[in-house]
């Protein structure tokens, strides 16, 4: 396993050399989120760095998940939610009106709290998104499926039963399949909404290792309630807090710094378990 303190080479994202030389990949400016007039997140400014894992921490209801789903505009699917501000991805504001959402979401994948494999076979779960982007060649599809399944460590477990219904897998296997399903499209960014919270400790550890192994090759944003986990996996951490019933970004920085020398008293209190 690679320690966050050591620099490491980047896989797919060749431009960025190492995590320690941060280049913004997603740049969030003045982002506010409202549900039916009510502000849930106010004026967030934040850079997500290429190839790094950024953890979003904070108490429940402070807008972390809303923030996460604003980054690939999944928030559009929630009725009554409106967003103001900008999110720049690859030099383009994703909130401009003619943005191709399908392309955006293929570049910025998402993993949900509860594993949500489609009620189809394992094979079809992975083949469906590929067919959607126009890959019809059966051999290529099979090759890609094998690659991602190996990447998430599922290949050994399921390669002899790819036509089994995915919902019959265990929770941890399902979540890894979902990660594989996102990875098969070769996205640049992965958004993860508490990916381990619905899993048992052992599966959780396996998924956590998997997330760590993604570092350097994908930009990962992860919402987690598990501070220890955030500390273990993240390069950067952002702390959100409710002030006057409105979610705010309180502190953002290298996770080592944030966890060990928090600048804000709220952050310190939260990390010590005195608040939250």
């Amino acid at each position, binding site marked *: 396993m690679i320690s966050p303190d050591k620099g490491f080479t980047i896989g797919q994202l060749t431009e960025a050399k190492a995590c320690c030389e941060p280049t913004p990949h997603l740049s969030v400016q003045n982002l506010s989120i409202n549900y039916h007039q009510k502000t849930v997140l106010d004026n967030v400014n934040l850079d997500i760095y290429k190839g790094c894992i950024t953890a979003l921490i904070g108490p429940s209801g402070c807008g972390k998940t809303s923030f996460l789903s604003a980054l690939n505009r*999944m928030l559009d*699917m929630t009725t009554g939610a409106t967003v103001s501000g900008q999110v720049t991805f690859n030099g383009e504001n994703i909130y401009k009106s003619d943005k191709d959402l399908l392309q955006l979401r293929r570049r910025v994948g998402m993993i949900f709290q509860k594993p*949500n494999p489609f009620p*189809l076979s394992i094979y079809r779960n992975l083949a*469906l998104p590929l067919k*959607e982007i126009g890959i019809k060649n059966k051999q290529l599809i099979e090759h890609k499926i094998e690659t991602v399944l190996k990447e998430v460590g599922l290949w050994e477990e399921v390669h002899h039963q790819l036509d089994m219904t*995915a*919902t019959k897998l265990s929770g941890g296997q399902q979540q890894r399949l979902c990660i594989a399903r996102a990875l098969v499209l070769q996205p640049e960014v992965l958004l993860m909404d508490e990916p381990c919270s619905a899993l048992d400790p052992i599966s959780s550890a396996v998924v956590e290792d998997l997330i760590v192994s993604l570092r350097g090759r994908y930009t990962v944003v992860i919402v987690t309630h598990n501070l220890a986990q955030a500390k273990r996996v993240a390069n950067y951490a952002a702390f959100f807090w409710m002030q006057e019933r409105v979610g705010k970004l309180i502190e953002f920085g290298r996770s080592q710094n944030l966890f060990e020398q928090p600048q804000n008293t709220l952050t310190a209190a939260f990390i010590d378990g005195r608040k939250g």
Partner: protein
Amino acid sequence: MAEHLFQFVIWCVALLVLMVLLWLVYGLLDHGLAKLSFEFLLSEPQNAGRDGGIISILVATLLILAVTLLAALPLGLASAVWLAEFTATHHFWARKVRLALDVMAGVPSIVFGLFGYAFFGIFMGMGFSVLSGGLTLACMILPVFIRTCEIGLRGVNNSWRQGAAALGMPKIKAVWYILLPAAMPAISAGLILGIGRATAETAALMFTSGYVDRMPESVMDSGRALSVHIYDLSMNVTGGDAAAQASALLLLMIIIVLNMLAYAVTDLWLGRRLSNDLA
């Protein structure tokens, strides 16, 4: 204790309903079975249906049903998908469509008959024909079919919708590959109700597909549906009761076969992609 009482009540009601059905079926068997034979099945009706068989009526019934399903299935599924997946619940037109459908469900079948006669028969120039009857029936079964499918689609686990969207799949693809298969129980319920209503319908067909008991040569010919035949024999033709009961028995058999067919076809079309524990 409460648990046992609960189970007991449910078993009792279930048995009661089953008994009513068996009572009905027994009546038909008792009066109709003697008349039912291959000869009855395969010969043309004679003497206003008292004698001979019902082959031409059988063919007409199946033709009418085919037209009905061919029209109602795509139209109904499309509408249900629009209502459930492409509009917000409060969308102005969606609300109007829903209201219209629910009102349509309560329109008496005889009014559907008059409508079909005026619209398909006269205005569209189809006259008395299998086509005009089938389309009228399609209109008639649409409300219950669409609403059942819509209910089914709305019930589908939202996380699959999110999952598909997060993969950058267009909504319509998510509907086609994931949501429709997942809504299969509801769709098949809607289909069964629709087929049931269509095969059992009399009044709407009297004015549209008509009364002619000759073998229809195309869908533009008038053809007498089995239910119309049953009605005529039992209400209008003196001495037609035995043939009526035999025909009714046959109608039930057709419904059994159609239901099995519906299960099989939906299984083939959608079921393969669907997990077993969902079906």
